[in-house]
């Protein structure tokens, strides 16, 4: 039997529920994410790790798989994504990551601030509470630099962390354990 190339899929590690800073509305942003990043080094949202919302990823995507959601953050339609990695390259925040379709559970936050800070700034940011770590049946998830990180070598994508996450940070791009953006 012939081997097929393993399909890859992009995920955005930010769900973008931070409260936008006064004065920086999306309409006022110009150009690509690179330029925005230069202009607002601390971020357009309050979080300096989150998605800038400039849409560079959406621009480079040839499959029309990336769009900027109502929350002003990049969102990937996994059914269209072919895992080419163009969006990964263009994102100045390195927020987009390529993974395999079987790892449908992913933490959508990479912020490194302490939990209390994050809680103030964002509704879905990881607050490093460690509930996921405690509930993971295979010890595949750890808090590193104040956010949850999954070791895909160990992960069996059971979804337990997504179900237990009190903040909705950990998501299921299949939309089963957590609700998909478009269903909101």
């Amino acid at each position: 039997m012939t081997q097929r190339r393993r399909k890859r899929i992009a995920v955005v590690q930010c769900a973008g529920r931070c409260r936008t800073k006064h004065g920086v509305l999306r309409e006022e942003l110009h150009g690509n994410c690179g330029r925005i990043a230069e202009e607002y080094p601390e971020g357009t949202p309050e979080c300096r790790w989150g998605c800038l919302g400039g849409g560079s990823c959406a621009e480079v995507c040839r499959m029309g798989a990336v769009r900027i959601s109502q929350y002003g953050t990049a969102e990937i339609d996994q059914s269209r994504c072919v895992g080419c990695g163009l969006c990964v390259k263009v994102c100045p925040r390195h927020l987009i990551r390529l993974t395999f379709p079987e790892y449908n559970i992913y933490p959508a936050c990479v912020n490194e601030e302490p939990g209390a800070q994050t809680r103030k700034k964002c509704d879905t940011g990881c607050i490093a509470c460690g509930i996921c770590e405690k509930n993971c049946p295979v010890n595949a998830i750890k808090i590193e630099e104040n956010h949850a990180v999954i070791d895909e070598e160990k992960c069996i994508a059971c979804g337990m962390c997504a179900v237990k996450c009190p903040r909705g940070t950990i998501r299921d791009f299949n939309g089963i354990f957590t609700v998909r953006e478009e269903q909101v």
Partner: protein
Amino acid sequence: MGEKYCFTVNGVLRTTDVDKPLLRYLRDDLHLHSVKDGCSEGACGTCTIIVDGKAVKSCVLTTKRATGHTIITTEGLSEKEKEAFVYAFGSKGSVQCGFCIPGMVMAGKALIDRIPDPTEEEIKTALKGNICRCTGYKKIIEGIQLAAAILRGDEYIEADLEKGDQYGVGQKAFRLDVREKVLGYGEYPDDVEMDGMVYASAVRSKYPRARILDIDYSKALEMPGVLTVLTADDVPNNKVGHLQQDWDVMISKGSITRCVGDAICLVVAETREILEKAKKVVKIEYEELRPVTSVWEAMEEDAPRVHSGGNLCQKRHVTRGDAKKALAESKYVVTQKYSTPFTEHAFLEPECAVAYPYKDGVKVLSSDQGVYDTRHEISIMLGWDPERVIVENKLVGGGFGGKEDVSAQHIAALAALKVNRPVKVVFSRQESINFHPKRHAMEGTFTLGCDENGIFTGLDCEIYFDTGAYASLCGPVLERACTHSVGPYCYQNTDIRGFGYYTNNPPAGAFRGFGVCQSEFALESNINLLAEKVGISPWEIRYRNAIEPGKVLPNGQIADCSTALKETLLAVKDAYESNPGRAGIACAMKNAGVGVGLPDKGRAKLTVHGGKVELYSAASDIGQGCATVFVQMVAETTGLGCEKIKNMGANSEVAPDSGTTSGSRQTLITGEAVRMASADLNKDLQEAGGDLEKLEGKEYFAEFFDPTDKLGADVPFPKSHVAYGFATHVVILDDDGRVKEVYAAHDSGKVVNPISIQGQIEGGVLMGLGYALTEDFPLKNGVPQARYGTLGLMRSTQIPDIHAIYVEKEELLPFAYGAKGIGEIATIPTAPAVQGAYYAMDHILRTKLPMENTYYSKKQKAVK
């Protein structure tokens, strides 16, 4: 009213207002029993269902989160899919204990729906979240490939195979239980539902060693729906135990616990939910005491006594010739210490039993390895004649030795008699891990000598077993470790001392290999060191010493005509020699049958009823397939097809006692009894001109017993066991140090079922690889630290290519058509062969299991 959650299950719109794990909703509310509860932690995959086309673990998903989704369980497959999976899994031998199977089917279906022609790699990836402890995954992967081909129309179902007109010995017989296990309607004890059934569960000790100062369950009793709370005072005789009755049913007030699995009181309630709540409000006051956590602590003079008789549970001294003199005169001698861990059986089905008042006593529906053993233990607890206790096996979701002792059965019986209603006791996964006996952890020192040609001269060894809180089967397991520490070779000077100590760790007892995994790991590792000193290859030194028919084993037994160790060595020679620097080799022998002078009897009764032959023999099929083997024996002897023979299962009310499923004994010992009874039936059948109808109502009973000599018997060539199986395994590593291939050559005498034996070998090898490389059972002051998902069980994505080879000789034993059993030996030589492969690669002797500094251990460390 609160929120309502609506979703579709197997095409029907369902609504509930209770937010709970979907697994519980599907099992308890919709009675969809194909959805198995193996851990309820998301780790095992037995509860896998399909949600919107994706394979999902239903214990993780909740009814609330399922809202709006479309759910399919095995019950909801189309007829075409059902038939495809039943045939594919049956013909490929994918089914053993069957508890993981409906989950595997659903994971397979989700994949096939997405990719109609999945590759092996794609299937492995799809099964990554589903544990199988029996098959080694290979047969399941093949089953899914075939099911996919059938659904594509590339392959076809041969209906004759399941029908089984050709069902004799050596035929690729389709297992009897395939259909019920694949489709999930076969009943394990947890699938039993009875009118008025209630639930019981024990509150267990928080500490391995603590004095129970007070047990206050008044709050629990006040809760509506709680029927009663039982303590040690309610148990007629508070002791059980497989061989030694040292195991308290419950620890009484004022007494000291021995391990965290100890029960303190037993709560009985109307529902599972009430039961869980009630258990939480039971208050137990402890005085925490320092536990004994190792054999070294246990043997200290001032060590706390785990049992009143002291901490030494069992000892054995096995000796022949003069080992001291032989070793002193040997050209080469090696001495090494070895250390092996506790191992958890991790059978997919946690312990469960349903008991109810029956006739003048009690009936227990159980998942165990011997209904008469369970009956015996329960009757001791109740102080009754054994006949008043009836035990019947439902399907057994794996055992591997871990279901020889009573666990849930006796407390279910006790509760059922108290409340006079059917009672179900089901262990949680963690309760199972904390409670049932493990494979003994061993510390041992082994000295082996040889002459200038590499011919073994003598063995001296000292073995220390940690038997934990209770004896369980410490005596015989320790004894097998000692008697088999010599290996399948011929030399006559041995001095083997074995000690089993009580500690406050979880108990240890029987586990596939029965002590031999530990001692042969040590011996075989020493052999490699000797080979190096002599300057010959590890293969050569084994071949020079290998036992052959007519030669004398180190225990004095003359190897019988069927002995084929050399043939297994030759079968793997090329594989071993063509991979220099990355291959390891090890041999093993394992007794079939209990032996050592014990009355180890096989019994079978055949009754002709309704135009069929009914087979009664209480021999537990724990997934290994003995129920099918026995029917094959009847078919072989009588020429009847499978459809004319019905195995009535293990039920102490109607089937004669045929001993424990232990010691690789059922195929040979019970198999021969079945053959004997069949031969009598066949004689009458021939006289009746082959017309079974004419024998209606007739009964044929047979008992098989081949006497053996007890250990240390003063006879010239003592016969320890009826038979021995032999094996040689070769393990080959790749450049990264990952196990790439395993060649497992086995002498099990006549192969009764070629599909089943491959599955036994592959599964045994994978278990051996886990033992060698990934499985551990860490304890912290006697408290198990592992959960099901962190035991280190190998997953589908980790498996190497396993080549199951069986050598069949012309000369066979005159029992059971020459079959010798395969159950345990498949798992014994793997670990030392892995050790040998790493030693060949980097010349580091790894004396501790799981091995350190390997591809597998590095992988785990890298993740922090």
